[in-house]
């Protein structure tokens, strides 16, 4: 493998570990937050309530799942 290919592979691995790693659910949660912010951008009240709420739910779900998987 050439040095360029190795560098590209390392770069890709870094971003995969950074974004997905062992918590793909948090990436999904983040995408849902982004979509919700886009969808609610014209609502004055709903946006600032729903968007942080979704982030909180995503965190809670991931932690609850982590309780079962990380102990094993």
């Amino acid at each position, binding site marked *: 493998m050439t040095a360029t290919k190795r560098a590209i592979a390392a770069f890709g*691995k*870094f971003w995969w*570990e*950074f*974004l997905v*790693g*062992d*918590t793909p659910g*948090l*990436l999904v*949660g*983040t*995408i849902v*937050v*982004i979509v919700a*912010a*886009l969808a*609610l*951008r014209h609502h*004055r009240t709903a*946006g*600032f309530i729903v*968007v*942080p709420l979704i*982030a*909180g739910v*995503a*965190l*809670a779900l*991931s*932690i*609850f799942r*982590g*309780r079962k998987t*990380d*102990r094993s």
Partner: protein
Amino acid sequence: MSSSAIVLALAVFGASAVEAVEALTIVLAAGTSRGWRSAAEGVVAALAVLVVIVAGVGVPLIHLVPIDVLRVVIGGLLLVLGLQWLRKAVLRATGNKALHDEDAIYASTVAQLSQADAPSSNSEVPDGGWRRSLSGPRDAVGFTVAFKGVFLEGLEVVLVVLTLGASSNRLGLAAGAAAAAIVVVTAVGFVVARQLSAVPENTMKLAVGIMLTSFGVFWVGEGFGLHWPGNDLAILVLIAWFAAIAGTLVLGMDRLTRRSSAGDRSTSRVPVQRGDEVGDSI
């Protein structure tokens, strides 16, 4: 200085301090077991590469990419990072994940490096340790380990500096806060060398995770033109919101863990162990 600037500086300082502790542990291990000259050269080389990345990526990022696009992308990255930190901190605080023990990492790294081929010109030195001076012989293993440790942990600092600094147009403030954290941790680290486990890393990670998550949600909303009551002050409300969620999760998970442990005595809390794989260091 506005409240959002203070919070931003605190977030960058905290995140950089956590990463600096992890990098310093590796550098101390490399320096102690392989000699200080190569470890120092590895640190300097890694810092030089990181400076080039900040200058080469950070400055064009601010000037070339539309600010709203930048805020959504950066907000998303901050949100992923913040949620990952919060998740790990809550799981560690409640005994559901092994604590990140710097003493164990230090001991393990020293043991691994000591098993590697010793630098030939060091063979006459009976006790490496602090006695090896900066004018000692060069060692490729020591250089590589110190370089990788500083570069990988530093890359995360760069990411936090670029994301928080660029999205708020305060790259200088973010870089300054990161530099201050690195200087403080390095100074303290060398004074209390080998006692880095005394740093309340998980508490820091929890606090910084709350701030990164809050900034992430805020910038994603800003990028799409979401209405935040009080504008920048909404960041403080978001911090309070995520702190409340984190606190509730810690209490709730702790109760759940105690209940399941009581039901199954054999399932004890996860012991402290080395946990520095790539994903774990984030």
